[in-house]
């Protein structure tokens, strides 16, 4: 079984290969209708969350006890919650938090996980063993206790939220990337690059990681929902969104147990959550295909 180098010109190109790579990718992405739909949907949802509250006649905290858990109506398009608050406004505010956390915390875990995994996989040997045993240790540590401790030391703030989420979510990413790199490293084009004496940093960033992008993107799209839901758990511990504000995660969590009585309290936040995830996924798949040089030959 012989494998030809996936990115054949990678080892020899010198003049800004990145620019053309991204440009080509964009051209290919544009042709993928689902990906464009995903991207557009994301933009619409983001605008809805960012601009929406300014257009809403209600605020997220304004209570009206006479409007206890009312189903969607012309007055409250998404209904009201158990304190008589307008759910649409709460969804908008919640979306800011969930999207913000989802994207930022995922970026944190993505950066750490990919670099760490790539480094461990590329260097190998004792360094790899040490780095991966550290990952094992971090996996094992009790997360609840860890978060409470973080809050004691640093107080509750938004940076800590990302730190806490980043601290757990990058571990699996690191393992996946390492697994991919270990395989890629043995392929001829990388061995050639090493033989050519290219700098390690360059090999990792320019050749190894781009070739592992597929699993990275797939796992990233899995990380985003995990992060959004983890935020709901963290707010249980007192970190994360503080009432009367809520996030999609906390709304879904609260709504889950009310699905019989007040289904709109689950269905609507869950619909936004799902729509966002589907869009992200379409976009992710499109990106993956677009960035995969091999598909361009079709």
């Amino acid at each position: 079984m012989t494998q030809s180098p996936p990115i054949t010109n990678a080892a020899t190109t010198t003049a800004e290969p990145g620019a053309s790579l991204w440009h080509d990718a964009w051209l290919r992405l544009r042709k993928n209708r689902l990906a464009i739909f995903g991207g557009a949907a994301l933009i619409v949802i983001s605008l809805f969350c960012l601009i929406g509250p300014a257009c809403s006649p209600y605020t997220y905290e304004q209570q009206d006890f006479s409007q206890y858990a009312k189903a969607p109506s012309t007055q409250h398009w998404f209904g009201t919650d158990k304190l008589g608050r307008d759910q649409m406004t709460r969804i908008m505010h919640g979306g800011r938090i969930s999207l913000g956390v989802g994207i930022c915390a995922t970026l944190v875990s993505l950066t750490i996980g990919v670099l760490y995994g790539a480094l461990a996989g590329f260097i190998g040997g004792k360094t790899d063993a040490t780095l991966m045993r550290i990952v094992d240790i971090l996996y094992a540590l009790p997360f609840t206790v860890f978060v409470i401790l973080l809050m004691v030391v640093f107080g509750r703030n938004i940076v800590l939220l990302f730190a806490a989420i980043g601290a757990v979510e990058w571990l699996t990413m690191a393992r996946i990337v390492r697994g991919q790199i270990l395989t890629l490293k043995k392929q001829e084009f990388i061995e050639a690059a090493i033989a050519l004496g290219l700098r390690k940093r360059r090999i990792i960033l320019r050749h190894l990681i781009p070739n592992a992008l597929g699993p990275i993107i797939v796992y990233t799209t899995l990380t985003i929902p995990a992060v959004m839901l983890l935020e709901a758990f963290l707010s249980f511990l007192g970190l994360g969104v503080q009432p009367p504000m809520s996030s999609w995660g906390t709304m879904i969590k609260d709504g889950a147990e009310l699905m019989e009585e007040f289904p709109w309290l689950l269905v609507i936040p869950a619909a936004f959550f799902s729509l966002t995830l589907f869009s992200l996924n379409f976009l992710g798949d499109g990106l993956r295909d677009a960035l995969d040089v091999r598909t361009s030959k079709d």
Partner: protein
Amino acid sequence: MKPLSLLLILTTLALVSGCGKREMRADAAIREQILLFGSKSEPQDLDPHVVQGVGEHNIISALMEGLVAEDPKTLNPVPGLAERWEISPDGKVYTFHIRANARWSNGDPVTADDFVKSYRRILTPSLGSLYSYMLHPMKNAKAFNEGKITDPAQLGVKSIDARTLELTLECPTSYLLHAMASHYTWWAVHMATVEKHGDPYKPGNKWTRPGSYVGNGPFVLTAWVPNSVISVRRNSNYWDAAAVRLNGVDFLPIESVDSEERSFRAGQLHRTEEVPNGKIDAYRKDNPQLLRIDDYLGNYYYRLNMTNSALKDKRVRLALNQALDRQAIVDTVTRGGQKPAFSFTPPETAGYTSRAQLKFDIEGAKKLLADAGHPDGKGLPPIEIHYNTSENHRAIAEAIQQMWKKNLGVDATLRNEEWKVYLDTQSGGTYMTSRAGWIADYPDPNAFLETFLSYSGNNRTGWNNPEFDRLIQAASCENDVNKRHELFQQAEALLLDELPLIPIYFYTRVYLLHPAVKNWHANYQDHHPFKHVYLEVPAK
């Protein structure tokens, strides 16, 4: 829309196919006379001298009985293991006569000496009993419990003969019989069994396992699978075994209130511990025969930190209190028939109702706040509301936050913490206002008011009033009921005038009960002695 449409499709399928032939566990259990009892949490232990919880009470009360028992309707003391008793005129000496046929589940007779040894055991400091202070009305019990005296013979308990026990108290204690009937700390353990399974005066004794457990109540322990089920079955050696109608009780520790409610609906329980707040209305409307709402001897309140500079001013505290629409909170937020609390002690607690009453008066509140130099809340720092994470506490805090904002112009922030962190913050006094709940151990104003003694570990507000302390101490040694109540009236008036707390509502117990459960009576402590309860197939 996925969950809903999926649900609809599947529900339709279910209706069309007309399933539901499987017999429910609850129905089979009615025939077997086994009560299926949702008991919330895994018990810490089943040793009455070690535990500290309501869930534990339910299980232990099936396995043990006190000298005095409870009337199932009124909870008034009725003869238990003791067939009768005498009280000396000064109210300080109680003499109990134990039944000739009172036996342990292994057949041994129950003797006065069992109680002497048991009381010595629970008061021995090294046992580390969390609830041993319940016995402190007994002469020298506190000193012995705190290690100040070491000779157990000095304790106010002795056996006159095998079947006669004499208790001597520090002060006349009018609620003593109630406490002895309802509180497991006053019940005896079979010392020979305890000694067989480890050091009886240290924690961690393993005598409470099925097969080892020796009790003197209507049932014996037959199974204990952690986090899953605890089974008790009929005790043929119980003195009143003929009167017991249930064959047993299965206690199912279901932590999640939602899971518990679903289990009830799936026919796996006869009684739940709670009802999810969002489902109360639906039950009230569609299945009122299943929903039980009983008054409960407890107060849901906010502690105010008296050392906080903003709250030091009494007018600010009064204003925060008067701006709360408690009726709206219980009607809209809690929805479980709770009663707005305008005093700390619930009305009609052992015949006592506080004369002093707080009020809801927004205009008055605004004026108080302006007098304190904060018109419309100006210059007042945001009031932080501290609570342990729970949907109900959060909703109440959110409502109160809005009321303060709307009615007073005062800003409030919310701070939730996980349970043990919350307790740590509260006892460390690093909060501004903090949610609290107090459930009385026995029906008496003292059970509420003593928590605000300056030296009480349950105070946690930094409030310290020597006059209040004096009144409560005087009341605790007063034998005349009217005089005693008068002392409590003065103390409570003082407490509500100074206001180191904001009472919000008096608790109710909201739970589901299968219609087959009979002889189950609403009462203010939610005690339902199992020897009286039975199951009967409801008439169709």
